[in-house]
């Protein structure tokens, strides 16, 4: 079956512009995660959705970052007034959520964002 897809795969933008990153999770996966990975670094948690709701937005780095999920499926991560430090790979993952907590996460290929 289809895996997690993300678009665009690469995005180059000028400092100060807004960008939208899209994630299409695996059908039926209720949980969706966004992470940021700077070059050579680890996975920084940004936000988690269970269905359409995001109980905890404290992982978002600043108020320039926002995310939404509609119909329990597609999610969009928006970065306003981009800064050079926003340059990174943005990864989306989806999973089932069992009664024992999160199950394995399936990652998309990521969107590489470069802010010039």
């Amino acid at each position: 079956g289809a895996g997690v897809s993300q678009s665009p795969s690469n995005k180059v933008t000028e400092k100060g512009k807004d960008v939208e990153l899209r994630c299409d999770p695996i059908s039926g996966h209720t949980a969706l995660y966004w992470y940021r990975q700077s070059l050579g670094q680890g996975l920084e948690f940004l936000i988690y959705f269970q269905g359409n709701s995001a109980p905890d937005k404290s992982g978002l780095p600043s108020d320039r970052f926002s995310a939404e999920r509609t119909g329990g499926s597609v999610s969009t991560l928006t970065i306003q007034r981009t800064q050079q430090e926003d340059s990174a790979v943005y990864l989306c993952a989806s999973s089932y959520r069992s009664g024992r907590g999160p199950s394995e996460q399936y990652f998309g290929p990521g969107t590489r964002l470069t802010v010039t």
Partner: protein
Amino acid sequence: QQPVQSPQAVILREGEDAVINCSSSKALYSVHWYRQKHGEAPVFLMILLKGGEQKGHDKISASFNEKKQQSSLYLTASQLSYSGTYFCGTPGLGGQNFVFGPGTRLSVLP
């Protein structure tokens, strides 16, 4: 709070064994292990849900000690394909977030 991983990096020859450790100052309810090859997305290896539970994936196994708040990943008779960065991760309290360790870079040489 981010789990701690050790070592930061390890270099092996094919056929050698390695252990990667993951520990936390907070209670661990479950530990997830992922491998990320260069330029690729992370790939799930295994989840450990109970204290002392061991899981296996080919010649990769793991253990989870709830009391010590730590997990170890064991790579036996390593293959070239094992090269990559290994991350442990755990859900936060209430499962509202998910935190990964900083990663352990494993290089397997012929």
